[in-house]
Structures are given as C-alpha cells and as structure tokens.
C-alpha cells in the first residue's frame, strides 16, 4: 500500500532518513531495524575524509528548531565503501548515497567509485550545504552549475538520482526545472535554511561558523511552500524534507506533492519517529480510504474560495 518505485529504486514506504541526521545508518541498531525504513540516505560522502567544523557545531533555538554547522564531517568514499556500505546492506537497508564535493570532477569521482559496488539503490547529490565554503552551496545557488552537475552525473549512472536543493534561492522552481531537464529522477526539497543565533550575555554567535543551517519543526511551513513551488514547476518526483516531527507533518508533504519524505532533525529528539511515522501514514491512509500512496500524493485541494475568486485571486 505504501511501496513506491522511482526508476529502478524500490522504496518499502515513503519515509527515508535525511542525510547528516542518521549517521551511516549503523549507529543505533538497538532502537530499530533499518530494513523497515523506506530508505537510508547516508551522511554526505566526499572523495577524502573530512574532519568537519570546529565546535560549537550545534545550538538549540527558542523557536522550535536548531542550528547546525557540522561541515560535512565524513569518513570519505574509500572507508564508506569498504566498511559502512557492506554493513548497511547486510542489514537490508535501502541505501541512497548522498554525495558532497567541491568540484564537478569530485562529484563524478565519488559517484563512479560507488558505481563499482552492488546494492546501492541510488544517489542524492548535495549541492546545497550551507556550512562549508566549498561544500556545494556555491553550486547550489547557481542554476547552470546545478544543471551541469546533473548532466555529468546522469551520464554516469542508471541508478536513481535525486538532486538536493537549497531553499536559499529566489526561485527554487527554476533549479528543479534545470534538474528535470538534465535527467534527474527526483529533487530533494529542501536542505536547511541559513540561520543565525547569538548569546546576548556574551554577544557571541552560538555556533562557530556564525551562521549555520536552520532545521526542525520551525521550518516546516517554509519547506512546504518550497515543495509546493517545485510541484508546480516540474513533473519528476519530489522528496519532501523540512521539519517533519509527526506522521501528520509527513502527510502534508505528500498531499502537496512529494512522493517520498525524509526525516531529519526529529531523529535527534525522537529516533523512534523513523518507525512510528511510516505506521502513522498507513493508518491515515486506511482511515481516509486511500488504497495506495499514489492516491494520496499530490491530492492537495486548492479549489478557490468564491470570495477570493471575486477578489481577483486565481
């Protein structure tokens, strides 16, 4: 009832874990079975290991959210393929490898290394990390650059390919259209919003890089609006991401038009959400007579109120 196939990737349910919020999917084996997830999107993998940013890397905000500036800390593609991937596959996870890079060549290199390995369901390309100078946002806010990366990677893989977009642009729809035109199978919307917080006692920023990525329930309405904008711009599937804390939150993204969703910051607060949210979606579908996920996806009703039509809104 909730399974879905996009290109050659099969998802058991529409709920995946977002990159950078679930490690390599191996960190909490006691809590739940990763094979029951729709998929695990890995921590961003780069060509070489990255140490990440200095502390302080995270800060809670008073608005139901958090700032992070992890800085793409990761083990590098060699260790990932040698150690992390086999362990994830042994646990029967659906693995989407997230790739971050500082050049088109590096994106291609990491993807080609992954292509040598069986079992990977697909890729998500991080062109939107706000926390490192060379981590993709310079690409992610440049539409021709995103188009170029998509084209280069599409030419190198038949696997599922999703481009993860930043919300920190004037028109995210334009970027999604460029990805669609160059053959991406999906777009992941959205990465974190750029945010900032300070301590008024010391008048210092709360995280070391001054600004960072803002996430958590506070961003859900903004993320949902971005997904709505992208839905109107492209036909390819959308992976909805941003502030999902409950099954109801996830359903909102599906109704607006996302085919899959990702859980991020919620996993820091309530790791069990990765099992309760898929169940909650299924229960909602049963209660409301949806026989398959595809009936729910994009079922948004925007029938105009007569008063708005009369006032010239359409």
């Amino acid at each position, binding site marked *: 009832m909730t399974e879905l196939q996009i290109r050659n990737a099969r998802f058991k349910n529409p709920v995946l874990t977002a990159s950078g919020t679930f490690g390599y999917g191996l*960190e909490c084996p006691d*809590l739940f079975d990763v094979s029951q997830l729709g998929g695990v999107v890995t921590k961003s993998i780069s060509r070489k290991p990255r140490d990440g940013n*200095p502390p302080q890397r995270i800060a809670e905000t008073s608005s139901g959210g*958090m700032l992070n500036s*992890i800085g793409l800390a990761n083990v590098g593609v060699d260790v990932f393929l040698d150690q992390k991937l086999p362990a994830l596959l042994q646990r029967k996870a659906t693995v989407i490898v997230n790739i971050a890079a500082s050049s088109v060549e590096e994106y291609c290199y990491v993807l080609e290394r992954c292509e040598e390995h069986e079992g990977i369901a697909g890729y998500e390309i991080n062109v939107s990390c706000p926390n490192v100078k060379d981590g993709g946002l310079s690409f992610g806010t440049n539409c021709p650059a995103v188009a170029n990366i998509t084209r280069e990677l599409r030419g190198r893989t038949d696997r599922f390919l999703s481009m993860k977009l930043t919300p920190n642009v004037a028109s995210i729809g334009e970027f999604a259209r460029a990805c669609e035109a160059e053959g991406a199978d999906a777009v992941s919307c959205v990465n974190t919003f750029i945010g900032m917080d300070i301590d008024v006692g010391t008048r210092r920023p709360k995280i*070391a890089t001054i600004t960072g990525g803002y996430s958590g*329930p506070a961003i859900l309405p903004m993320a949902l609006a971005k997904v709505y904008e992208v839905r109107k711009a492209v036909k390819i599937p959308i992976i909805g991401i941003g502030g999902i804390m409950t099954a109801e939150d996830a359903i909102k993204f599906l109704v607006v038009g996302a085919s899959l969703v990702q859980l991020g910051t919620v996993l820091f607060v309530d790791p069990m959400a990765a099992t309760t949210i898929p169940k909650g979606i299924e229960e909602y579908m049963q209660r409301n007579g949806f026989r398959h996920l595809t009936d729910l996806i994009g079922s948004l009703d925007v029938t105009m109120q007569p008063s708005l039509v009369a006032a010239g809104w359409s």
Partner: protein
Amino acid sequence: MYQQHVPITRSQQVAQNVHILEFQSEAIAAEAIPGQFLNIRPSRFYDPFLRRAYSIHRVMGDRLEIIYNVVGKGSALFAEAKVGETLDILGPLGTPFHLEGEFRRAVLVSGGVGIAPMPFLGDWLLKQGKQVANIYGARTAAMIADDGRLHNARYATDDGSLDFHGNVVGLLQQFLAEEGADGLRVFACGPNKMLMALGDFCQLRGIPLEVSLECQMACGIGICQGCPVEMATGDRKYTLVCTHGPNYDYNHIRLESIPAVH
C-alpha cells in the same frame, strides 16, 4: 540502548540550585555502567526542543538518579516535574569510564554538579575491591549535595564554609601528601577550567587522570556529529563526546577546543 517513557519516582532539591530526579527503568538500570549518560527530552512540545544529557548519578535496583543545576528552560522543566509523571529517556549512552588497567585506589574529583557520575562510579569500584575517596568542591557549603551516601568524602569550598578552603586541586595535593600517589587513578568531572588545572597537576606528577566531559549535544548517539572535541593523539582530528566519550584519558584530548559553556 533504549528509548523509553519512564515514571518519575522522586524529584527533590538537595542543595542550593541542585536537584535530583529519580525514575524507574529496569532495562536501563540493568544495562548502565558508570560514566554513561541519559539523553532526556525536556518537553513533548518543541520549546525547549533538544534532549538534555545527564550522567547517571546512582543506580539502585531498577531506579536511576540524575543530578542537575537549574540553568535554563530544560532543567527548569525537570525541576517542576512531579512524581508519577513520565520522562522520555534515551539511554544508557556513551562509553563508560575506563576501569581496566592497574590501580588499587581511586580518587573521584568533582566540581559542583560534576559530582554527577561519581556515586555510581564509587559504588562500582568498591564492589571491585578498590579503595575509593571523593574530593568534592563547590563555591560554598550550601551547594554541596551529599546526603551521607558519598564514600570517604572530603570537601573543598571557595569560601571556606566547609572543610578545605580552596579548590579541588589544592585538596588533592593535601590528600596526596597524606596518602601518597601509589597505585592511584584520578577520575574527574566538573568545569573544563577545573579539569585543565587538574590535568596540569596530574601530568606533572605522572598520575593517570580520566575525565568525564560535559558538552552540548543534540542526539547523544552519534548521528548528528554535533559534539566534537579535538584529539591530542591518533590520526583523526575530532572525537564525538556522545559516543567515543564522554570519558577520556586526559592526555588523549584537547579540552581547550571546547568553547566555554555560557
């Protein structure tokens, strides 16, 4: 590791701005080892949003205690929590104190609420046949939280209102003058400035020092990578306090890389 909703069985102020919460979890109590911590959700709503990490203070049968200062929104909510209410707890987490290796005697040095992991550690070491002494420092006597269950304790207060007038390093020096340093290992928890002073002191005398760190975390289980501390040894730059820590050989880390907690 469990995520459980557990009932609160005791909530009590035990010293000036120092509180204890006790709750019941057979599974977590059975699995816990000294030095491990719990990551506790302060609210089912979204403000305060992140879990708070607390060392396991004591384990008694199926009961566990945490001890904390009220410093912000999260700890204020814990102080208001009533017996019978439930807490959403993730744990036990982290790498325990390293208790292997040669030592006959342990001195547990605490600064303020750094007393958190010490009673559980002391009880455990006594069962292993080690000699245990506590050195516990605070600004003033009213901030000392000891209901008499702390084994072989000496106190240091900044204002001299209880026992030794001075800090824990001075009191440790006095202890060593009386008892010697033979077969000794020091375990310490407290403000980073205290740990660094203690680190200098122990390094100079060749006394092994294990420190239990406090730092802001989000997940507590290694998936967010939000709690790095620089390593002084090895080929990696950072270690994650939540999973590789919070307990480290003092010589393995660079404490100065952690920004001061506000």
